[in-house]
């Protein structure tokens, strides 16, 4: 990978805050990161049966999402971002 594109300038503060929120939740709950990797693999396997998923860009993290932008945190949640390359159904139902 091009190391220059890896540096997402202008957004790194936001990335740091998001990573930290996940990390601290993981530290406190004792949720093992390797379990997260296993869940990520399984989600990929299931979803990619239907649509073309970009595994490299998939994100799965433990966080405390807010109910509204300024609202209180809701309970810890698994948050997934699953980028889809193509929505053309694969037809393996």
């Amino acid at each position: 990978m091009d190391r220059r594109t890896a540096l997402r300038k202008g957004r790194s503060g936001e990335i740091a805050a998001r990573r930290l929120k996940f990390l601290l939740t993981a530290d406190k709950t004792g949720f093992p990161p390797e379990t997260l990797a296993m869940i990520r693999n399984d989600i990929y396997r299931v979803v990619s049966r239907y649509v073309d998923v970009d595994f490299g860009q998939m994100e799965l993290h433990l966080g405390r999402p807010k109910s509204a932008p300024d609202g209180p945190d809701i309970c810890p949640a698994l948050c997934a971002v699953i980028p889809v390359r193509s929505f053309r159904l694969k037809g393996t139902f």
Partner: protein
Amino acid sequence: MSEVIVVTSGKGGVGKTTTSANIGTGLAMLGKRTVMIDTDIGLRNLDVVMGLENRIVYNLVDVVEGNCRMKQALIRDKRYPNLYLLPSAQTRDKSAVNPEQMRKLTEDLQDDFDYILLDCPAGIEQGFRNAVAGADRALVVTTPEVSAIRDADRIIGLLEHGQMKSIHLIVNRVRYDMVRRGDMMSVDDVMDILAVPLIGAIPDDEAIVISTNQGEPLAGTDTPSGQAYLDICRRLLGEEIPLTLPNVSFGLFGRLTSFLKRA
């Protein structure tokens, strides 16, 4: 009634000793009888940041072990009439003192001082437990970096578990230019993540390096960090000083000068 304050962080290198030196100096400037105690046994540094390294005769371990009286070990800072330093020992380690002895040491100082400021070593082991043992309140220093914040969170958890009565956050080395362009967590981000009330934010300032080089604390001087440290001292005394963060109160003039600097 005196107050015992511990300056702690978890991670090393975030500015605990610099913060201790400047808050100690600031409190003395505001007329409070202040003693700073370097509790980092084996890695003594507060003396050199204060520029008092050539005046050490006895140290904290000597006092605890009864090799000298407290008065013999305290170094009076001639620049500020109310300021004293109890230096750490350089040739011993953290196990030379236990939390009970530290509690007694701070109690012995309470009659003579308004503020007893403890500079805590990095880490969460015995040195940390010694430093927090006798403290009424804690100032947790962090920088806006993932590693420092993660460690600060751990320290805050330990302080809360140990029933620390009051915990406040100091965000050190903030680069407001980077915050504005989105490449550094803002003070608000750090507060949001750590969920501890803020007592001050110190801008990243070259003047700090110069001041440390010279062994002259800069609290109260006409520098961005010198003013920020003095504001923290005033807030410790109970004054209501609004937090004027450069990224909030950044007017047209500031924007113009930063534009010119970039060009």
